[in-house]
């Protein structure tokens, strides 16, 4: 099977992506990934093309820093052999294709709806008819949690099958947050509208998603941005990482009822978030990242404030995390809770923190570098136990690492370049082009793909939040744990509902 190798943020004409017949497409892609831990599927989706469905598969090679593209044309009514039976990486992707286009798979292990998207092929199916995995036993019992979350965060339904206090099986049903973001990208034609959409894919990964969208758009428009734009994006991404990781540590402490940690980390997160307010006027960093330009130039004053904020942050953070991860009662809750084995991590194909918690080095900042990361000489932080404790420790070290990057970044602020916002938003996109963009948000790999039609309009926009891969990791990690440890496992992954539901 032929494939086309591209780099991150590169765009290529759609016809250059080789098309193969389904069987060789399947075997070829499985062969590409077989026995190679550096390769995983970053996106696999379908696009309606006349009567047919054209499937695109994007497999990233982390050591070669390339993404291998292949495609295949199938009939919507066809019954296909499934990738997932051979490689679980594809499980969610195939379910999505099945849901959107009605393609059926003969040997898919778990062919269930993903999110009940508004454009699903079987409009008759819905939340109320979701086919839950059932039990027929006198000894076991089921516990259903949600869709309204106890802390009223985001909606999702969790169905546990338990033996007393022990979880045997967890099934996660999402889709309550579906807004049809991918469809909205096609309908909203203005650049500002699209950038605003990207900001609202997941409220906690504003920088990650908007950056991915911006690179993608620039690649499609053929626009080269200068250093100050790259600088702002890299800086903002690391501030976001620090803020959310600190907030997560606070939430982990709340879930194990460790009040001191909960309130101290909560307090520490606030000035970091508030720093965005000083920079761009919004605490959630909305409007900070825009395609082609940077609307809020970085100044010496802001750099000084950043150093002030983190000079106050670091000593308190160090002291508190030291205390927390030394306290016996905390350790007894974190260690050996929610463990995933290396084999499982690999099979599911998790990304970001959920991969790095168990020796799997997946970090777009090194594997497909972008922005100013090549200059930072980034070294991913990897842990080896795959439990809640590993995930807490990754956060601790990533916060420290990000702060050191921030400190070194602000020593040389690039000169401001002048951009004309109107000219940028009116730039035409290349016709019949495929573009792929990946960024490393705080949660992990974010992947956006766009395809334009012959007039240069978007024909397809595909978003993949890291949560899409990682929800399955949560479901597997809680097996054989106590049901009362579920919240802490959930929080340690801290996956996005709306990022998954789109």
């Amino acid at each position, binding site marked *: 099977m032929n494939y086309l190798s591209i780099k991150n943020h590169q765009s290529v004409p759609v016809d250059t992506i080789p098309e193969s017949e389904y069987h060789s497409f399947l075997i070829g892609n499985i062969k590409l990934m077989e026995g190679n831990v550096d390769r995983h599927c970053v996106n696999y989706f379908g696009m309606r093309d006349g009567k047919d469905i054209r499937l695109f598969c994007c497999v990233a090679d982390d050591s070669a820093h390339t993404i291998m593209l292949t495609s295949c044309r199938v009939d919507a009514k066809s019954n296909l052999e499934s990738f997932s039976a051979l490689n679980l990486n594809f499980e969610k992707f195939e379910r999505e294709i099945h849901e959107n286009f009605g393609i059926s798979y003969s040997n898919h292990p778990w062919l269930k709806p993903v999110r009940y998207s508004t454009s699903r092929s079987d409009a008759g199916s819905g939340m109320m008819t979701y086919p839950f995995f059932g039990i027929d036993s006198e000894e076991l*019992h*089921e*516990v*259903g*949690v949600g869709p309204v979350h*106890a*802390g009223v965060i985001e909606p999702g339904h969790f169905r546990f099958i338990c033996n*007393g*206090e022990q979880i045997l099986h967890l099934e996660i049903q999402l889709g309550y947050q579906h807004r049809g973001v991918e469809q909205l990208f096609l309908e909203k034609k203005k650049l500002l509208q699209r950038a605003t959409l990207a900001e609202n894919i997941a409220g906690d990964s504003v920088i990650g998603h908007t950056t991915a969208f911006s690179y993608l758009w620039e690649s499609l428009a053929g626009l080269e941005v200068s250093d100050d734009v790259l600088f702002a994006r890299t800086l903002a991404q690391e501030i976001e990482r620090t803020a959310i990781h600190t907030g997560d540590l606070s939430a982990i*402490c709340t*879930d*194990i*009822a*460790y*009040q*001191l940690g*909960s*309130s*101290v980390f909560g*307090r520490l997160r606030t000035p970091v978030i508030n720093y965005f307010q000083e920079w761009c006027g919004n605490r959630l960093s909305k409007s900070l990242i825009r395609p082609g330009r940077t609307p809020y130039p970085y100044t010496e004053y802001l750099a000084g404030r950043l150093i002030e904020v983190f000079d106050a942050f670091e000593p308190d953070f160090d002291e508190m995390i030291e205390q927390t991860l030394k*306290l016996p*009662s*905390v350790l*007894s*809750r974190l260690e050996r*809770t929610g463990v995933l084995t290396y084999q499982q991590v690999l099979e599911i194909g998790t990304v970001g923190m959920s991969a790095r918690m168990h020796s799997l080095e997946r970090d777009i900042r090194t594997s497909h570098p972008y922005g100013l990361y090549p200059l930072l000489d980034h070294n991913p932080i990897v842990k080896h136990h795959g439990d809640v404790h590993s995930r807490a420790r990754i956060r601790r070290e990533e916060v420290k690492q990000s702060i050191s990057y921030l400190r070194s970044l602000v020593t040389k602020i690039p000169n401001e370049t002048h951009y004309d916002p109107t000219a940028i938003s009116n730039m035409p996109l290349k016709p019949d082009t495929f573009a792929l963009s990946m960024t490393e948000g705080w949660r992990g790999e974010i992947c956006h793909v766009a395809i334009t039609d012959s007039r240069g309009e978007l024909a397809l926009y595909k978003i993949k939040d890291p949560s899409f891969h990682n929800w399955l990791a949560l479901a597997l990690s809680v097996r054989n744990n*106590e*049901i*009362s*440890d*579920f*919240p802490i496992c959930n929080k340690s992954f801290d996956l996005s509902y709306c990022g998954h539901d789109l």
Partner: protein
Amino acid sequence: MIGFILIVFVSLFFTGIIIRTKSLAAGRKGPGIFQPLKDIFRLFRKGSVYSQTTSFIFRLAPLVYFSSVVMASLLIPFGVSRAVIGFEGDFIFFAYLLGLGKFFNIISAMDTGSSFEGMGASREALFSMFAEPAFFILMGSFALLTGFTSFYDIFNAIHLNSYTGYALGVMAALVLVLLAMIENSRMPVDDPKTHLELTMVHEVMILDNSGFDLGLILYTGYLKFALYGALIANFFIGGLALNAALPLYLLIQFSFAVAVGLIESFMARFRMSHNAQFIFALSSVSFLIFFGVLLIMGKLN
């Protein structure tokens, strides 16, 4: 009679002190001492909502729970002042009165048919079962030591004036403090602040209660706390005159509340499976008290 009045008096601000301590420890200002009480008055003015799946048991349970604790409070003496009700073997009556209240709580939780509440009920039943031996071995040992079987007589006859005696006093206080934490579903066994149903013990059992019923259950919790505080205080104020006993009693209750607040601030709660071990370990401390008593009585050679 004074004993009962004092328990009601202390119950008015006991939880307020715990919450205030926790707030201060977390660097916050915190609500006023009487905020929990105000919340209860707010709930008392509200109507209750009942699920259609529940039966009369669900409506009855809060009242039974409340009356059982009030009844148990009537059994607690105050130093040299007798309790309202006192008879031979009243500590057994005391334990099973609380047991009755708990039993109704558990079946009322099961009555709702919710899978959460069933889980909470099962946990509560398990933990109470493990806590029971600790209480009886403790009280039994002191009954053996003093030769009496009612609270009033036991407390007035205890003279912890040897080293072994002091050790017994400390251990007894420890067992009672921890029992109070378990019985009132506080940390480290249960986290009263959590919003996560899956980790709750007591809180999840009252998820369906609302309005007046909820207010009653909450107030009963405060009363129960003060009740245990009074029990602990009695170990130390046994034979003291009223003017010395009263400040000591209030001091002990106050320190108890502050201690609970501090424990809840500076440690994480136990893993659910460790709770049973922890509670069962209390019984072994009670056994130490039993052996201490045997030592004092010279029955161990």
